[in-house]
């Protein structure tokens, strides 16, 4: 009876179980990222070209100059990588949460509080042995970043409170809090703007190729990226992240750990953002000062979306934005270029990255809204 009708076995060639060769996988992933990210980037370049033409510049010449300023010499590459470092962290943080379908915008706040915490601890590391002097501030920064995300995480996981609203609120809270704390407690005397004291020398993350600014923070970021990739692919919780992010009802019905996933996603993004802020403080700025984060948290969101959370895409995206920032800073020395052009380019890429990703969701919301106008 049990003679199963030999129903069509798997089709022709041997079904490649779960793993194609790694190189091939990387190529496929890269291709996919290029497809998603290509459009926003191309549109941004076109918009930029229009602006350039309108302001009497030759787009090709300007773009050429930007490329040389970003990658032309070892020292320019170093500058690009230095600019890449903070947004690499924030992009990983955002991608980590988004994989689970959790749309946090709170990485910015975690980054800021992490930076402040690391700067304050780092300034008091004078007598400590070098490794400890680095690890303690980074640890503090990471925890601080997690702290910023804790309340939204609990609200989301337990009471399903929308994380966009709560994390945004915490960004404001942190921004106010940080400014106030610096002015009241940590203000370095003799500094015009509000800034903390410089960290002790042994608490600095050393530069990789002095005098260039790129530091060990980049190495930490790259390790983190690899960890992110492996963890998502190979860990059980990473598996559940992907499942919850792509099919929430399915995950619930299958008894996956939905709550744990939501909680971990928000907390994890905060921890990573905090570590990013700490690394930025110890590696580049060497203190905390007003304007510590040039909206790195939000650039990270754009990169994560552009990359569709893919690790290689995150790296490429971070370098792209890093290059724009680095080149933008110096290109005006050579040609008469509206400073805002760089902002326009970045802004356009971001807008389209978000649009390409979010449009399907938005149209659903609009549909829901028009329900109220039902006849």
């Amino acid at each position, binding site marked *: *009876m049990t003679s199963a009708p030999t129903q069509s076995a798997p089709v022709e060639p041997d079904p490649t179980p779960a793993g194609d060769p790694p190189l091939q996988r990387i190529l496929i992933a890269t291709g996919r990222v290029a497809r998603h990210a290509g459009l926003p980037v191309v549109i941004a370049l076109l918009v930029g070209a229009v602006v350039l033409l309108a302001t009497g510049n030759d787009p090709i010449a300007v773009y050429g100059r930007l490329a040389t300023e970003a990658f032309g010499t070892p020292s320019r590459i170093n500058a690009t990588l230095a600019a890449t470092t903070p947004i690499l962290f924030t992009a990983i943080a955002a991608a980590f949460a988004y994989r689970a379908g959790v749309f946090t915008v709170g990485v910015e706040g975690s980054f800021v509080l992490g930076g402040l915490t690391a700067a304050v601890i780092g300034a008091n590391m004078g007598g400590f042995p070098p490794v400890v002097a680095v690890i303690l501030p980074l640890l503090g920064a990471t925890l601080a970043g997690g702290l910023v995300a804790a309340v939204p995480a609990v609200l989301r996981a337990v009471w399903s409170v929308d994380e966009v609203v709560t994390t945004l609120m915490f960004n404001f809270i942190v921004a106010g809090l940080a400014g106030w704390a610096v002015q009241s407690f940590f203000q370095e005397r003799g500094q015009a703007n509000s800034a903390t004291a410089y960290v002790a020398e042994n608490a600095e993350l050393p530069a990789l190729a002095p005098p260039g600014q790129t530091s060990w923070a980049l190495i930490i970021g790259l390790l983190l990226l690899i960890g992110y990739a492996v963890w998502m692919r190979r860990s059980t919780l990473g598996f559940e992240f992907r499942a919850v992010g792509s099919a929430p009802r399915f995950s619930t019905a299958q*008894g996956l750990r939905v709550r744990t996933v939501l909680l971990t996603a928000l907390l994890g993004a905060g921890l990573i953002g905090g570590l990013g802020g700490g690394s930025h403080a110890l590696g580049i700025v060497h203190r905390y000062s007003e304007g510590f984060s040039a909206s790195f948290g939000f650039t990270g969101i754009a990169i994560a979306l552009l990359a569709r959370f893919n690790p290689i895409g995150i790296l490429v995206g971070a370098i792209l934005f890093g290059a724009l920032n680095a080149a933008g800073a110096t290109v005006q020395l050579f040609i008469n270029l509206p400073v805002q052009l760089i902002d326009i380019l970045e802004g356009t890429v971001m807008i389209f990255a978000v649009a390409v990703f979010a449009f399907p969701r938005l149209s659903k919301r609009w549909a829901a809204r028009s329900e109220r106008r039902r006849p």
Partner: protein
Amino acid sequence: MSSTSTASVPGSGPAAIRCRIGARGVSRSFGPVRANVDVTLSVRPGTVHAVVGENGAGKSTLMRILYGLDQPDSGHVVIDDEEIALTSPRAAIARRIGLVQQELAIIPELSLLENLVLGEEPVRFGRIDWATALRRAEELSASVGVDIDWKAGAALTSIAIQQQVEILRLVYRGADVLILDEPTAVLAPAQAEELLRLLSSLRDAGRTVIFISHKLDEVVGVADHITVLRSGRTITEIARGEIDREGLAALIVGDSEVAERSVSRGDPGETVLVVEGVSAKDDRAVLRLDDVSFEVRSGEILGVAAVAGNGQEELAEVLIGIRGAASGDIRLDGASIGRASIRKRRLAGLGYVSADRKHEGLALGLSLADNSIATPALHGLARGGWLGPRRVAERVKEVLDRAAVRYGSSSDPASSLSGGNQQRVVLGRETIGNPRVLVASQPTRGVDVRGIGYIHELLRRARDEGAAIVLFSEELDELRELSDRIVVLHRGQVAGMLPGEASRSEIGALMLGNHSPEDDNPDADVPDDPTPGHPRSPRGGETV
């Protein structure tokens, strides 16, 4: 050729047109999978044309090509006897062709009326003219003899009504060829009949209908012509009356044997699942389950029979824990699980085949591999929180082979599988870990003739391995073949418990709430059509 109703085709040009829509030599491959191979199809205007074939035979692929959603690697779509290249659905709509895909595209947040006119709202003074929209909608439903409350929110109406609205939406947009991919798969028998009547009246009004179905009775009964696909190839075309159900089944499967659908009973052991006085409410706080009690033993299949909307969906949800019980308790091997989380229940050995394959049964965007292992027992494949790729690959292969899934690569997304093969993935996954209890809801929905036999075999195997199975099905014959006992629900209460050998009329009478069939329902072999007037699906009544 000349069907009875060709004469009245409005606007389809000279009566000389022989092929309103079709395919000539169409081939389409997805990597190694040859979904369509040199397919030929010719649909005469003003007829109902059925396309049948096994799961993965290439039916949906062909329909997508006819609608311009997909392009053939070679060959042509034929419209009005003319070979043309359909590059997009827009081009198809311009040729008055419409498609309802296998999965419904109704937007639940909108009203039925909004769903109907979406994208083509009548406008007056720059605003949507809802009065006109409503009038047109009512004319439309009246013209084909269906009764729809257009103002109801889509989420609150039954799937049968949503299905009708999807079809009428095509008509509203001026489609004259209606392509329907398995429109009756998710419907209860009575609802399916109503839908088929709708198709016939559309045909009588001169429209051309193509539909796919695995329910051969309805194909033989309704279609003017039938095209059979097998392994992506056209096997033959048959006219109405030339073939019966069995002949058609033989054509569909080819030389291979259809396992004789057989009856075999289990050998029940100790009591495993105890349901005790369970009551539950639906999303609108209406009582749907009222003090339901029963027991299921190891090695036993308990069938649940009920007319759609009498509490069976809630019962399945309460058993697995998706819906909380308002009162009562559930015990598994003596331990109370009535208040336990889904996860706890699953870890205690509860398997679940959801009737909602697209949302609950599978994560369509994830790979087959991911779908095959997505259970709490996932951790059995893990060491210290990490999944070993080799162990995972082995398990994936085991799951997919167990259910004889037809697939390309296990890294393909589940969405790339044909509908019936998707169902098999679910069955394979849920039966593999020797579940103590298996809650199986509509397990053969959308599955082909041979696949049904195969899934029945899987269920029996799970039973023989000691599982206590609760089987929900809209097919009474399926229940009678598989069940050791059948519990009948009526208005959320247990109307009776029958042996698996019970006749259709006995079951049917209880489903209608008649406790003594002999007395007041002498000629009651009607269980397939017991509805009108009864509550609809849980999400449902048509009115808010």
